[in-house]
């Protein structure tokens, strides 16, 4: 007999931790952006990320994974986030944040679509509804 066992998966703890850290990031950005412009903030964010990367390097004792594919996707991830953020700032120059931010907040739709096409990931019905509610909340909270 197959039984469903309700349990709190390890990945979910990390997802909640991520929400917490990025939430604090959003909070500190709110404070800093009262004076600094978005580009200045981006420079400070990049410099602030360096100690974390260095700590990871020390923890790994300099033994970095040498998988070329992994390194390429890692670099592309950083560049895509950074360049995407510049696009976001460019949109903010011509339109209010209350309009641009909810629109750009829809980016997970593209990730879900690509994960469906490229990684063959499938969401169950409840998760599909959850994604729709999450998207609605992202738009509302970004206004």
């Amino acid at each position: 007999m197959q039984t469903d066992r309700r349990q709190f998966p390890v990945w979910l703890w990390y997802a909640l931790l991520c929400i917490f850290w990025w939430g604090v990031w959003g909070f500190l950005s709110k404070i800093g952006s009262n004076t600094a412009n978005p580009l200045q903030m981006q420079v400070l964010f990049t410099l602030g990320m360096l100690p974390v990367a260095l700590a990871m390097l020390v923890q790994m004792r300099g033994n970095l994974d040498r998988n070329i594919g992994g390194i390429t996707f890692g670099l592309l991830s950083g560049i895509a986030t950074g360049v995407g953020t510049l696009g976001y700032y460019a949109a903010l120059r011509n339109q209010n944040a209350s309009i641009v931010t909810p629109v750009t907040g829809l980016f997970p739709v593209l990730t879900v679509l690509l994960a469906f096409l490229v990684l063959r990931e499938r969401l169950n019905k409840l998760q599909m509804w959850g994604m729709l509610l999450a998207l609605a909340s992202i738009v509302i909270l970004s206004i």
Partner: protein
Amino acid sequence: MIHWVFYAAFAIVLWGVNGLFMKLGTNRISARAMVIWVTAGFVVLLPFLWTAASLSGLTTGVILAGLIAGTVNGLGNWAIFACLEKGAKASVAIPLTALYPLCTALLATAFLGERPSVLQWLGIALALAGGAMLSYEPSTVRAPEEQLHCTQ
């Protein structure tokens, strides 16, 4: 003049594709290595940013807030990579962690005295419900008695 929608679409495409890069990367290297290479990707853009923005005129407090924000952002990056490394689907983890404005809203309410509007309360409720539904992964495991029979 380029319309703002073009720039917004540009951001959506790059951030959306990034979700895929994150999963494909963590399928190949560790979460800690991903943090290092993603940071390297950000550093590549630093010279361009530096020519466009000078830090002169900023107070020590603002610089400190920006630097700490970067550090916690890096910790958040590590957490999302660890989440994906532990088997989370990109199609679940990316929309779920995109709910971080919920945490920002709660912190702003607690420490900046901001009061959420009725619409924002609705957003908070939807985020909680949506997040819980997204996280639901039914795991089908065999009952202990059956596992015992199988090993005998």
